[in-house]
């Protein structure tokens, strides 16, 4: 392969796959779409490595494993072609304009292997924290929870011309704690101000996985030694720093097959061909520069993180943190959730939001239901359908309609009928439970003016309430609702009943 157009083909391919990524988010956000087809998280580290063990299904691993096995053939093409975060980092180069280079002696690119190793080690202690640092979930969260609400707010009219029924989606919507999601995303992009693709070269654990596999890949960059004049144009233009200073040798595990060196070479010396790894050797091993000291630091810090899981990262017992219906028991839920945020995207009522530290640091970016912003729809099971890890179990509709996620409590001092003797039955009206978890008691009382009036007082029946939160959502008292949903008193075993 010698054509210089391959650099442009690559850009177009990357753009198309990025578009598929964005389209999947916009499609899944439609409340009547099929939530079962959320597939992008299957590219994440979790799905490739242990996803099929925790979910007992290969459904979510097929795509990720397929792309991963292609790496043995094509090398680390994933980072240059498929990765949505990589595409965003490439696009942001126009704004950030990275200038610097890595200093020759500091081999900081080894850090990504240490990050990967560390997350594997921690996983042995039952701490699946890969979701925090996985590029797929970082991109997913940022696009769903931070960028898309903005786009939808500004562009709802033009989008409704393209997408029928767009105006009927609940807009404007927003996500609680979106700013923290944005901070992580912007820091990752901002790292490029040191040099191009800083994140991908230095920190990305998924990139490290692909790097290890691509060390033995067959599709390689070959330089014609007779034509090459060592001008250094390819070295300068390489966004991954994968080319040796003299221009001939390649660090195979850093090459993301972007074909910029093909384009930059004025002497037609560069080509890409299928060849045996022994014939065109990579000039570096993936593990180059990793010292015994590094490994000790990784082991020590991993042990510390794992140990701190019981204290700093412990599951929180904040009663206002309501998990989506079908969520596992809190500690298991935190282990299983990869924080991709898809459940929040598919929720038709904008009820699910990312946590920051409310559920403990370990619960960062996990979904919680905030009834005042959105309630759990009685006939919807989309979050369970879309969850790629089984952290939210897929429930049948009849199970979901009995699944207790919380219990409503009336705040008698601000509830209109209880405190001001004004008739208001909104919570009772909206309650979806078949025999009504909120009922009205007729009582004759004296109001503040001393006049005898008949009021209907709402009363919650805890045994019937499933905690969907529509009462809190629709309560006409402004600001703090006069009815709030808190964690259920029932044990989880009873929930599945």
């Amino acid at each position, binding site marked *: 392969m010698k054509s210089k157009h391959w650099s442009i083909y690559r850009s177009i391919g990357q753009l198309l796959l990025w578009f598929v990524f964005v389209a999947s988010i916009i499609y899944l956000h*439609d*409340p*009547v779409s099929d939530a079962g087809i959320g597939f992008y998280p299957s590219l994440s580290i979790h799905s490739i490595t242990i996803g099929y063990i925790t979910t007992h299904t290969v459904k979510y691993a097929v795509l990720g494993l397929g792309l991963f096995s292609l790496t043995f053939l094509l090398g680390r093409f994933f980072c240059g072609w498929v990765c949505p975060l990589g595409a965003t980092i490439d696009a942001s180069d126009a704004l950030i304009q990275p200038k610097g280079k890595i200093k020759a002696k500091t081999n900081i690119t080894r850090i990504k292997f240490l990050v990967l190793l560390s997350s594997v080690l921690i996983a042995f202690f039952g701490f699946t924290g890969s979701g925090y640092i996985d590029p797929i979930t970082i991109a997913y969260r940022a696009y769903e929870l931070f960028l898309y609400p903005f786009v939808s707010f500004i562009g709802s009219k033009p989008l409704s011309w393209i997408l029928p*029924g767009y*105006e*009927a*989606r*609940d807009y404007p919507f927003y996500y609680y704690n979106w700013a923290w999601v944005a901070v992580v995303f912007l820091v990752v992009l901002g790292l490029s101000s040191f040099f191009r693709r800083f994140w991908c070269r230095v920190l990305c654990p998924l990139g490290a996985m692909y790097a290890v596999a691509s060390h033995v890949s067959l599709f390689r960059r070959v330089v014609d030694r007779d034509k090459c004049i060592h001008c250094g144009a390819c070295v300068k233009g390489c966004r991954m720093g994968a080319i040796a200073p003299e221009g001939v040798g390649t660090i195979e595990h850093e090459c993301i097959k972007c074909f910029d060196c093909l384009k930059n070479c004025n002497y037609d010396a560069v080509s890409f061909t299928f060849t045996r790894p022994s014939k065109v050797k990579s000039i570096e091993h993936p593990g180059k520069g990793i010292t015994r000291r590094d490994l000790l630091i990784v082991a020590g810090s991993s042990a510390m993180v794992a140990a701190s899981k019981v204290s700093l990262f412990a599951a929180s017992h904040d009663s206002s943190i309501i998990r989506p219906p079908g969520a596992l028991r809190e500690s298991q839920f935190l282990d299983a959730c990869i924080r991709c945020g898809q459940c929040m995207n598919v929720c*038709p*009522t904008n009820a699910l939001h990312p946590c920051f530290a409310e559920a403990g640091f370990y619960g960062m970016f996990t979904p919680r239901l905030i009834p005042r912003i959105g309630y759990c*729809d*009685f*006939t*919807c099971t989309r979050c369970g359908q879309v969850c790629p890890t089984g952290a939210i179990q897929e429930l049948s509709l009849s199970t979901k309609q009995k699944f207790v996620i919380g219990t409503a409590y009336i705040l008698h001092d601000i509830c*209109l009928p209880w405190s001001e003797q*004004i*008739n*208001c*039955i*909104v919570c*009772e*009206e*909206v*309650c*979806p*439970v*078949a*025999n*009504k978890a909120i009922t*009205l008691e007729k009582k004759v009382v004296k109001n503040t003016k001393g006049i005898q009036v008949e009021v209907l007082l709402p009363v919650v029946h805890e045994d019937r309430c499933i905690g969907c939160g529509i009462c809190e959502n*629709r*309560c*006409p008292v402004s600001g703090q609702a006069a009815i709030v949903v808190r964690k259920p008193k029932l044990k989880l075993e009873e929930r599945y009943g």
Partner: protein
Amino acid sequence: MKISRRNFIVTLFSSVGVLCSNYLTGIKKAFGVGKYSDLVVIKTQELTQKSIYTMVEQGFKELGGIERFVKKGMKVVIKPNMGFNSTPERAHTTNPILVKAVATMCKKAGASVAIMDRPVHNARLCYRSSGIEEVAKKVGVDCVYMDRDKFKPVKVPGGLNLDTLDVYEDILEADCIINMPIAKHHSAADLTLAMKNLMGVIGGNRGYYHINLHRNIVDFNKAVKVHLIILDGLRILTKHGPSSGSPADIKETKTVIFGTNPVAVDAYAAKHLFGIEPSSIGYLNLAAQSGLGTTNVGAYSTIIRTV
């Protein structure tokens, strides 16, 4: 002008005639000699698509033909109740086959038909699960999502609780509004029928309308004048309304009520479908007091047919 004897007598009798004309219409009503009857009640033995179609056809025939309401080129808005994300079996939303029958007839009459509602739940879910979006597509009429920027303030003449209301633009521009409520129990309003169904064309905060609900319902009906009401009394929810209840709470009354006066339709439905005295319902009483009609069902001329 000189007053001649002749002039004086003509003026006297004509003014007396004008004054009495009010009584005359009253007398006409009392004897049922009006051109059209106030209420047309169609009953059936079985609930099939065919029988529902015949009910609608029969109903329009008794009302004086569909041409009385829908003419060629008219903009017709059908306002069913699809306020909740629930399937037709649960009887929270208007029967889709009934909507289909009415929409088909309007379309045949040459009108451009739009179906719309402002649901309590997410509109996209409600439209789909009620089955009405699907039948609209089959018939080939629009099922429109309401745009929250298209509500326009309207003065309420003689409002009991509200001076102005935000009403949806398409409703204000429509040549014929067909209100198609489902009859069901409602915890706050006792029953939700034709008058309450108009909340679905009003903008603003729904929660606040539930404080002083009965007065607000009357005000909705003062602000928006509906041309025809077709009340779905095929399967009615008698308990735990408007948005829950079990199959045991649903009663098959197999009735469709046609009328032009919302108070008449509601009073009849309350009395004969639910067995509740209309004067015991707050908003019907208030509506009668403000001169929209009477809660005395016997005062309306009624045609009852079984198909």
